[in-house]
């Protein structure tokens, strides 16, 4: 207990030092002419000076950032949606919930939940952009017509920001694994017995990720930290270059590169045949059957429908706050209907077309039905970082190359997602505080360091990480999605929203989706949310009560929320002073 208190005290000490350094940075005098005269002349009081520096811009600068091409925004949103879950979570969910039959509730959730809410997000984002806003709180304030929606909209910054605290860390594992396949030494010895290989893979994962002990990264496992630093640096560099030169340019080459990597691995997996003649049933056809043979009995289980809705929901990045931010950089007559559908379709190709064919098929061919079942039971991380290294070890000379390609592809999938997590927070700091991008990047880095270090330090058992994932990366996504679809269909008004969605649209949404967006999607979402809460919340609350690390994670969430609330309060004052229509009272131009 005492040691737990000590590590928390150490963390908060680092946090306070960081904030003091940042306050000092704010106080450093700027060269003449870089700030308005009234701010430079605010006297000697440090508090007044810092306050003045926080509020020094009282007029909104015209927002000049926008997407360069039509394809650029589609690939960026698709890149945000395609992540580790497409390749590692989806196959496990499908295999556990009816195989091929899982695709019935899966496609139902895609049509009635994912795509309609996605269209609503795209439309709200572009509308908010026309009003001069780019962050979820400001956009929801406009759509939801008031402060309540604006303050709830803070969730739309909290989710991507808090998820980035741990997502970038996992991203670094992908880069580290890819590097190990290129530079060695081998993660798993192919000559060892299956049991020994399993231990080697598990030991490597445990040591590399710090799952075995708290503080292991600080104690000596420096390489993971180095990979994290590289990953974090690349992310920040990309978003600091802006929407067009940074995010769009990166996604425009990363998405095709990811597709090429996936095709290479898929081609190899589908041509594995029957690698071990001693086990003739371990072949590609049987491997595909493990994932795709339907079990219709599972359709009677509400859990299957819940799993399908959850998978669609998290996979498409709806309810994350990201799509609204990205869409806010579109021009007022840019299409959102075809763009939203194309981004969703691209995500599905990676999920069903690649994830549904590669992961479990490869595991089955080498590990058989029992080994694959154990891998699926091991969850996303077990499947991706323990089982697949064993599979690549069986592939002979090509194994190392395929391992490198596979983990580099996962890294690309992760980084196109993580940059979409930093961008909403960056936009929020810029527009709420009236700061330049460089200063906002400085604050973003400070907040991310304060949030990421505890995730890396308190790594034992992944409790800290999974608590953040449960409460922010899962629970709050449901909440934000419900707020979004309610604001769009009921507060902003479906007729107005429908008209807004079709401004500049290249295809028309079938009229039946008016009914879907107004009644079906909100009700579907509510049912899923209630069922999800009944199933999971009691255990999560018990976990928080019993585990100090889980409590620490909640403290981090609370501290981040408090910071964002302060920013939105300052932003409100600025936006009012600048005469912006922050409550959505006037029609957009």
């Amino acid at each position, binding site marked *: 207990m005492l040691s737990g208190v000590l590590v928390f005290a150490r963390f908060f000490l680092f946090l306070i030092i960081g904030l003091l350094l940042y306050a000092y940075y704010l106080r450093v005098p700027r060269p003449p002419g870089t700030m308005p005269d009234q701010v430079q002349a605010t006297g000697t009081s440090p508090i007044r000076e810092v306050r003045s520096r926080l509020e020094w811009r009282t007029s909104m600068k015209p927002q000049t950032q926008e997407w360069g091409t039509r*394809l650029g925004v589609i690939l960026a949103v698709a890149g945000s949606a395609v992540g580790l879950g497409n390749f590692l979570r989806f196959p496990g969910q499908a295999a556990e919930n009816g*195989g*091929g039959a899982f695709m019935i509730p899966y*496609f139902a959730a895609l049509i009635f939940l994912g795509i309609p809410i996605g269209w609503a997000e795209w439309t709200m984002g572009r509308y908010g952009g026309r009003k001069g806003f780019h962050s979820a709180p400001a956009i929801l304030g406009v759509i939801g017509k008031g402060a309540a929606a604006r303050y709830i909209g803070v969730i739309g910054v909290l989710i991507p920001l808090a998820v980035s605290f741990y997502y970038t860390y996992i991203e670094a594992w992908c880069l580290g694994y890819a590097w190990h396949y290129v530079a060695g030494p081998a993660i798993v010895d192919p000559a060892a017995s299956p049991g020994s290989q399993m231990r080697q893979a598990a030991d490597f994962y445990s040591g590399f990720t710090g799952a075995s002990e708290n503080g292991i990264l600080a104690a000596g496992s420096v390489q993971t930290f180095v990979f994290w630093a590289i990953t974090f640096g690349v992310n920040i560099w990309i978003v600091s270059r802006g929407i067009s030169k940074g995010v769009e340019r990166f996604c425009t080459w990363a998405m095709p590169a990811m597709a090429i990597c996936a095709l290479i691995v898929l081609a190899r997996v589908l041509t594995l045949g029957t690698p071990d003649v001693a086990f003739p049933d371990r072949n590609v056809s049987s491997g595909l059957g493990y994932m795709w043979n339907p079990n219709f009995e599972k359709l009677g289980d509400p859990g299957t429908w819940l799993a399908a809705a959850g998978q669609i929901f998290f996979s498409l990045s709806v309810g994350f706050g990201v799509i609204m931010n990205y869409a806010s950089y579109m021009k007022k007559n840019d299409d959102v209907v*075809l763009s939203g559908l*194309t981004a969703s379709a691209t995500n599905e190709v990676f999920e*069903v*077309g690649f994830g549904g064919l590669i992961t479990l098929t490869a595991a089955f061919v080498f590990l058989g039905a029992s080994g694959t079942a154990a891998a699926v039971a091991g969850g996303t991380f077990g499947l991706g970082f323990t089982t697949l290294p064993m599979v690549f070890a069986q592939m002979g000379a090509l194994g190392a190359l395929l391992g490198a390609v596979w983990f580099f592809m996962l890294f690309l999938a992760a980084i196109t997602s993580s940059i979409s997590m930093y961008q909403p927070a960056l936009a929020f700091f810029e527009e709420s505080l009236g700061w330049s991008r460089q200063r906002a990047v400085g604050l973003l880095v400070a907040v991310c360091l304060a949030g990421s270090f505890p995730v890396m330090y308190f790594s034992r058992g992944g409790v800290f990480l999974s608590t953040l994932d449960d409460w922010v990366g899962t629970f709050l996504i449901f909440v934000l999605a419900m707020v979004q679809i309610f604001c769009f269909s009921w507060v902003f008004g479906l007729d107005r929203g429908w008209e807004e969605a079709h401004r500049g649209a290249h295809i028309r949404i079938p009229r039946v989706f008016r009914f879907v967006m107004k009644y079906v999607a909100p009700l579907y979402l509510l049912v899923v949310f209630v069922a999800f809460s009944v199933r999971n919340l009691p255990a999560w609350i018990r976990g928080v009560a019993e585990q100090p690390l889980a409590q620490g994670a909640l403290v981090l969430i609370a501290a981040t929320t408090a910071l964002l609330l302060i920013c939105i309060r300052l932003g409100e004052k600025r936006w009012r002073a600048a005469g912006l229509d922050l409550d959505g009272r006037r029609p957009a131009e």
Partner: protein
Amino acid sequence: MTVLGWVFLITSLACVWGLAAWCFYKVLSLEPRRSDEPPRG
């Protein structure tokens, strides 16, 4: 793999690849926006 497994696999792949192909065909066959055009001269 059973026949029904193949049916579900092929149908699902046809749906996602077909939708994506149709969407990208529509997007790429549109007139370029002014900012998409290469600079003149």
